[in-house]
């Protein structure tokens, strides 16, 4: 499943990024002074001035991880179900955190279903999924005014074909900023 790959890739990438942040690699958002020192050193001949990166606080590490997580905007559901799977809790927390810190930003949550069942029932099921995601975000402090939901039911499949592989990709909610 594509998503599992993404999650696994992130699980691998996050510790690597955290390690990278502790190494000497310059980091645009935390170390602008270090960069200017390096440039200045090139003007003064003979000496080379180096600088260590500041240790990142746990909060900064969390922000970094959340920024990475927010690249992913789709969560998936079980058949005929609108429960948020625990594997998507952190992903939704990352989006909620961003929306809480940026109250002027709003998000549209699209609910989608697989092709099984009638189109009309699936519109209702897709709405229930979108609303489940919206409720989850509200519980994390996001304002109702920042959230709109729309259900497309089975009308906008991302994967075509009548098999579990396609169905599992189509049972989804997508956050659109």
């Amino acid at each position, binding site marked *: 499943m594509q998503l599992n790959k993404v999650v696994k890739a992130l699980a691998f990438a996050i510790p690597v990024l955290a390690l990278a942040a502790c190494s000497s690699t310059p980091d645009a958002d935390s170390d602008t002074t270090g960069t200017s020192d390096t440039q200045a050193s090139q003007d003064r001949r003979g000496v080379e001035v180096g600088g260590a990166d500041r240790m990142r606080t746990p909060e900064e590490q969390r922000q970094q991880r959340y920024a990475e997580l927010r690249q992913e905007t789709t969560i998936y559901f079980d058949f005929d179900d609108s429960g948020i799977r625990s594997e998507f809790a952190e992903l939704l927390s990352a989006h909620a955190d961003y929306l809480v810190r940026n109250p002027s930003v709003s998000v549209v949550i699209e609910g989608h279903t697989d092709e099984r069942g009638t189109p009309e029932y699936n519109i209702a099921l897709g709405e229930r999924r979108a609303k489940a995601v919206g409720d989850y975000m509200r519980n994390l402090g996001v304002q109702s005014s920042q959230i709109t939901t*729309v259900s497309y039911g089975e009308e906008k499949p991302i994967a075509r074909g009548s098999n579990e592989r396609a169905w599992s990709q189509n049972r989804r909610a997508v956050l659109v900023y």
Partner: protein
Amino acid sequence: MKRLLAGLLVWMAAFTAFGQGSTLEIVITEGQDRARPLAIVPFQWLGEGEKPYDFAEVIAADLTRSGRFSPVARNQLPATPGKDTEINDYSRWARLGVEALLVGEVSPLSGNRFQVTYELIDPLRGQITGGTAQAMVDGALVNSNEHIIEGRSSVVSPAQFRQYAHRISDVVYEALTGERGAFLTRIAYIYIDWDAENPYHLMVSDYDGYNERVLLRSPEPLMSPTWSPDGNKVAYVSFENGRPEIFIQDIYTTQREKLTSFPGINGSPAWSPDGKKMAMVLSKDGAPDIYVMDIESRQLTKITDHWRIDTEPSWTPDGKSLVFTSERGGRAQVYRVDLDTKRVSRITFEGESNLGGNVTPDGNGIVVVHRANGLFHIARQDFPRGNLQVLTQTSLDESPSIAPNGSMIIYSTTYRDRQVLALVSMDGRFRARLPAREGEVKAPAWSPFL
């Protein structure tokens, strides 16, 4: 009050021809063996040169598609008479095993018009009477021609040829079955071409897939087309503004108006039998509930109020109640609500769930999407209670719509990983597929009698 909307994102092309020929083509998959043999004799052309139209071909195709009849192949017909008086030996037709033969003549008139005359003949009766039965009428002996079941004549122009052929099919069908024919009807449906810039198409065609027209093209989903009882308008759901809204469109004038745009779901429109009201699903107050709107005044009445899903309203023929799908009992099942008392009663009990109920025109049955063992099939149940009979063996069946004479159901199914339309007779014996050449076809809606 009525806002006519010129869709900017939406390409509207009422009755512009769509592609070449028809997208839908019927493949009969089961049920031919039980059909009654008929002889549809090619109509005689009495003018010069090529005959202008093959009426018999269209009529034979209609009657085959009804599932009730099996026209004999042309090369097996013993003769090609154009009228009853040209038949000199009824026994040859009786021996063919046909219960009736249709003969006809087409003769040219001035001004590109044509006289079409046809007779439906009972060969067994003709064999007995020799075609010249006599009966006492007012004390005198007259020729009764009682072996001629139907005989009519009409003047038609070339543009009306196909329509008139369907008319003849209706006459033949009604004469032989006692039930009104539904060959002069149309279907509305959604066609999706994933490769097109505007993938979603609202289509209307004759019931047999001919005369296909695009009513609307959109980059965003279109859903749930449904006919007004007079057959002049369709209501449907469009996502062209990024959310579902119900529209009404006149299929002849292309005039379009937005009926609803409430927050949340605006879905599943269904015209009342008198054409004055629209049942629909709205989720503006939370969970999806059933509402009825007076179309003229836009006055809204809430019919169901439940925290779980209520959807797919469909009117009973008397207009006094709705059947709908609800999850109130756990899994989705079909319920009925009385519009005066708002009393709700459950109708379906078999299988894991039942959805999309449609009451038959005679009010004696209900057609549902029946889920059992994880499979979705079309089924018929006595209405309101009784035996449930699964009618189809196709997979992922949905959106059943009943022909106005109650003889046939058109529905959406999946064949080779694509959504296609299929037909099944009300007794489940006759089954046919209407494959699209490309893309997907779904949400069929059979028109009323036109």
